[in-house]
């Protein structure tokens, strides 16, 4: 936190000095345009290349966005200092009362990403959060450090529905952990099934429900579990190109967040449902529809999918043209996933 505050202060100081010297202030932001996003094969993720854009008030067209950028940094500083958090949507509305109204939320989201790139911190560190919430369940004890909950200690098995990964939880300290791995689960039905089947005890796992594409907060939390507690991360999704991509974004990050470091988990592992599983476990399947084919071909052209493992998976999809949901495992009974499928996958 100190580090982030320091960076924000330096930014303000730089602009003040420019103004004092009678200059029209400018800032240089790492460019987030497609041409500047490159795939770093060594690190297995997208990163920003060297290009920077100059946002300068000497260009009257930049004036409004420049003001919005500084305002955004200023809001972040206040949020951090006051121990509060906000959402992307909140900020879009708040801007109006400061006279820096955004055209639409897309514009304000883009400015937030600019501030992230400018300071080299994630928006979560700036106390700005998206609306989507993932949930977590497992033998992990945390201590909140948000205002009013400083002493609150919570074991994440407290609720059978799991605990939402919100701003407070994302910033909490890890107190104690009985788990040895993290399983990220795509669908809510499977998440509940795993809790009911006591998968967290059986596999000593922390379960995270991503609800489709994992929110950044969930990715950031899993990243912390991996980094701070050394827990390996497994990803369990539907067996289709969309599920594969949920896993890929957790592993390699997205192009959109190429400027943020604390989101990618390069050694996370996609355990299923793999295209080969459909045959191996004789799961009920559906044929690919047009959208699935298009998605598959997009992925095949994606630089993140060029490792032998991923190339094989996509090739298998292409050969078979079959997909299976996580729930397809229920054809062999509700406990099949914890009795047979996962034990074989988590070896």
């Amino acid at each position: 936190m100190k580090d982030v505050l320091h960076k924000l202060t330096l930014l303000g100081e730089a602009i003040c000095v420019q103004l004092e010297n009678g200059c029209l202030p400018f800032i240089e932001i790492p460019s987030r345009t497609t041409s500047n996003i490159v795939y770093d094969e060594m690190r297995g993720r997208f990163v920003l290349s060297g290009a920077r854009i100059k946002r300068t008030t000497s260009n009257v067209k930049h004036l409004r966005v420049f003001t919005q950028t500084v305002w955004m940094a200023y809001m972040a500083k206040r949020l951090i200092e006051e121990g509060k958090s906000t959402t992307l949507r909140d900020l879009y509305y708040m801007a109006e009362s400061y006279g820096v109204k955004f055209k639409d939320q897309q514009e304000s989201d883009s400015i937030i990403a600019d501030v992230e790139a400018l300071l080299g911190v994630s928006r979560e560190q700036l106390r700005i959060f998206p609306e989507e919430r993932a949930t977590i369940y497992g033998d992990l004890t945390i201590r909140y450090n948000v205002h009013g909950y400083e002493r609150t200690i919570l074991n994440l098995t407290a609720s059978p529905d799991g605990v939402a990964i919100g701003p407070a939880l994302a910033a909490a300290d890890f107190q104690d952990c009985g788990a040895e791995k993290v399983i990220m689960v795509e669908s809510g039905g499977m998440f509940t099934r795993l809790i009911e089947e006591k998968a967290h005890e059986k596999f000593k796992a922390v379960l995270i429900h991503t609800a489709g594409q994992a929110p950044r907060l969930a990715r950031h939390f899993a990243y912390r579990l991996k980094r701070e507690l050394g827990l390996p991360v497994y990803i369990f999704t539907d067996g289709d190109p969309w599920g594969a991509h949920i896993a890929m974004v957790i592993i390699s990050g997205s192009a959109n967040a190429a400027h943020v470091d604390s989101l990618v988990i390069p050694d996370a592992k996609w355990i299923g449902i793999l295209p080969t599983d459909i045959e191996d476990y004789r799961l009920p399947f559906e044929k690919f529809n047009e959208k699935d084919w298009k998605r598959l071909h997009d992925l095949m052209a994606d630089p993140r999918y060029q490792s032998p493992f991923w190339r094989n998976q996509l090739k298998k999809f292409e050969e078979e043209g079959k997909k299976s949901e996580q729930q397809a495992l229920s054809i062999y009974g509700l406990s099949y996933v914890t009795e047979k499928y996962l034990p074989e996958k988590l070896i």
Partner: protein
Amino acid sequence: MENLPKMPVETLPHPHGVDAEMLRRLLKRREGKSLLYFMAKSFQRVGYATAKKFLESAGFSPHQPTSTLTSDDVLELMEAMKRYSFPPPDARCLSPIGEDVLRDAIMKVFEPEFVTVCQRPPSVYLGHPFIVEVAVAYGCKGIDEEVSLYRFANRIPLIYDAHSDVSMNVLKKFNWGNYLPVRPQATAVFTHICSTKIPFKTAGKECIADPPEIEREIELALKECCRRLKTHITGRVNMEERGRRFNAYKKYLPKIAQFATELAGRRDAPNISLTLERILEGLD
């Protein structure tokens, strides 16, 4: 109206501009004189020297009496006159309206935002001298169309049959986009053609034919007017643009200073009044 237009000067016809009927009349007036005398006394821009050269090149004897010409001779003489290159006709006989008078009149009637008048130097078609005057008034009161045309011939307004008029032809072909950043609005175009002979298309004297010389002069005058109009409009746009620029800085720069001050954790905001002043003066 303070300055009256200059009085026109009476002149003789120009040899290029006479037809057979007129030539016969002129010859009759100089009956019994030599052709040389006839030529030198009946036409403008023709003296004895020019007359002699012309008659010799046309195969007439300078000393031949005018009364001996047959009617074929008269026609031949006319054709020869048309072929021969005499000095251009004298335009002092013409009576243009004048730029000031035209401008004042338009201002009074239409109250335009901007008006400009262009008088072309005298020119000639078929031996007839003429002067074209064009005025363009932009942002007129009481004009709804984008462009409307008002025509005058020798100071007489032409009311009917505007669509086959030479001025309308020029206007139709005119590309406003080359001159104006925007579509013309409430614009009036005035054309005045004064000549010793206006080439009316019909006996009703309502619309003017389009000899290429006249069409060209109208076009050139219109272009000149529109160049001036363009300067006016872009100048106005620039002024507005500068105003907008300054307002943007006045709005945003204090905010930038305020947010940056709070970011830096300073107590006092940097003074930006000087920077704003410099922007107003256009230094930045």
